């Protein structure tokens, strides 16, 4: 990767900047899908006129049709509406998980990479421990400890992501600290904290961004898994993982599983594609 020491050097190559924003077709499609999913989570009412909670018993277990895109469930509720209304919870909890991972992990990595010495040793062992406990088991015991709710599932997922952000941030900070321009900043009288803020943090964040995007996709999967096991909000909530979990008891009517699963996979696939693209353009 190349270093960016300040805003000026970034704007130097304006042609390079434009070239950097050339968007491949698959990435454009991924961005579109993520945009739709985000819109679902903010304004679900705009995308469906059905209620996610109240069904029409006479219309139960109908297959997908023009009226009901994803069919209806055992209570006659529109599955598409359930998916759309469940998005807010699924997406926002994944966001919370990423924020926890980035902030806590980033701080640990930043401090231990920048200060070094015994602080680094102590944090390194903590990160080792977090990495040693299988991620999903860690999320399960944390959510058991703080209670079965979607928000707690998000916190648990965030905790299990702390270690990887700490690792990557620390590596980036150490790499930047040894760069010539940081040495120059020291020599020209910059204080430790100024250099940390002005030079080290921006450079470290450049490789943390694609990782955060990737982690967003993974968090959706982990939270869906926790919801699938029943560690999230109970029904009538309609988190994607919970919808799939309910659908598994009705495998004769497979759209109850395939519709929410399809939306989950498509979202995570798009998020991963965007992360890959961010990493390439870096």
């Amino acid at each position, binding site marked *: 990767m190349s270093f960016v020491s300040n805003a000026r050097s970034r704007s130097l190559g304006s042609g390079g900047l434009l070239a950097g924003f050339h968007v491949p077709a698959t990435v454009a499609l991924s961005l579109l899908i993520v945009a739709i999913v985000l819109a679902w989570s903010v304004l679900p009412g705009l995308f469906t006129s059905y209620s996610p909670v109240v069904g029409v018993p006479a219309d139960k277990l109908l297959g997908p049709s023009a009226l009901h895109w994803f069919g209806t469930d055992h209570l006659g509720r529109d599955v598409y509406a359930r998916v759309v209304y469940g998005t807010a919870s699924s997406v926002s909890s994944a966001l919370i998980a990423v924020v926890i991972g980035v902030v806590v992990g980033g701080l640990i990595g930043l401090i231990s990479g920048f200060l070094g010495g015994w602080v680094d040793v102590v944090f390194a062992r903590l990160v080792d421990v977090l990495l040693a406990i299988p991620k999903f*088991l860690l999320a399960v*015991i*944390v959510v058991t400890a703080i209670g079965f709710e979607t928000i707690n599932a998000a916190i648990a997922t965030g905790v299990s992501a702390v270690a*990887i952000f700490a690792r*990557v941030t620390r590596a980036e900070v150490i790499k930047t600290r040894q760069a010539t321009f940081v040495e120059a900043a020291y020599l020209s009288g910059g204080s430790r904290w100024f250099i940390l803020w002005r030079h080290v943090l921006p450079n470290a964040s450049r490789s943390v961004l694609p990782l955060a995007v990737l982690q967003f*996709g993974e968090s959706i999967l982990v939270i*869906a898994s926790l919801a*699938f*096991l029943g560690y999230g909000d109970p029904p009538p909530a309609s988190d994607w*993982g919970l919808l799939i979990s309910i659908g598994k008891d009705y495998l004769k009517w497979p759209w109850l599983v395939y519709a929410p699963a399809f939306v989950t996979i498509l979202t995570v696939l798009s998020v991963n594609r965007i992360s890959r693209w961010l990493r390439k353009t870096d």
Partner: protein
Amino acid sequence: MSNAYLTYAAKRLGQAVVVILLAYIFTFVVVSILPGDPVTSVLRNPQNGFTEEEIAEIIAAQGLDKPIIVQLWNALSGFLTGDLGMSMRSNRPVSTLIAEVLPSTLILASAGLAVALVLAMLVAYGTRFVPKKYGQGLLRGFPSLFLSVPNFVIGLMLIHIFGFQLGLFRVINPDSFWATLFAAIALGIPVSAQIAEVLIANLDREAEQEYAAVARSRGIGQARLFATHLLKPASLPVVTVVALTIGELLGGSLITETVFGRTGIGSLVQRSVSTQDLPVLQAVVSLGAVVFVLVNLIADLLYPLLDPRVKIIGGRKRSPTTADETAIGATKAVTP
């Protein structure tokens, strides 16, 4: 066996012991911050029918009346001597409970790993032989597709297609050959993605090396170049990646067992979570950490012996291939 290697081995061993102890303490802390008082809520549950004296007896026997630090000390010293305590729910030793279900999970996890390895090799080695025109891109897209599908969805799809539609296996008989195979596939597919990503990246990197260019200029065919020059250097680093996926296999088997209705460590965890059986949870999670740390220790100690390119300098592993990058790649951080 050089002096430097022994120093490195001793250092890694010491590190592993420290991490295992800290992991135990960490789990203990997480488990004991549980809100409410699960201990007495289990014991005082009228369904269990304990009298007040019995409750006091159990609390004293489990040492739950002592200060938390004493409890930690007792638990830790028990853990070190192989005593995992008693289950709060069934009043049986935790080690017996685990030993009962361990074989089933071991079968599932090793079958899952085998599926993951075979699939990863098929995909990664395939990219060397499938020309760009005929779907190499598709093959390269597989790992990220596999990473995007939750394993319970794969499990449900397999049950739906092969169990319900084709009738290959019955869900009520989860230990049959077919049911185990499909459970292993559900478990193995997401794991294969990580291995395949690293393999593909390594193959691409080795193919760009000068020695590969020299071999090509000698007129060597694609197949021979792959077999004699690329295969070994690209595949060796996978040892470390496989070790890193052990955690994924353990965590994944928890969900796979639920989906396929198998009895195993996963179902034990599920049951202990719903009954708040803390000693069992504590034991399973810390044993998970022990397995992960030991497997990675073995991989790290084995790797310098397998790969002559790795040099040990001053007690640290140094590798001209980007071993650190592969390690991070496996945890999905950086895919070159």
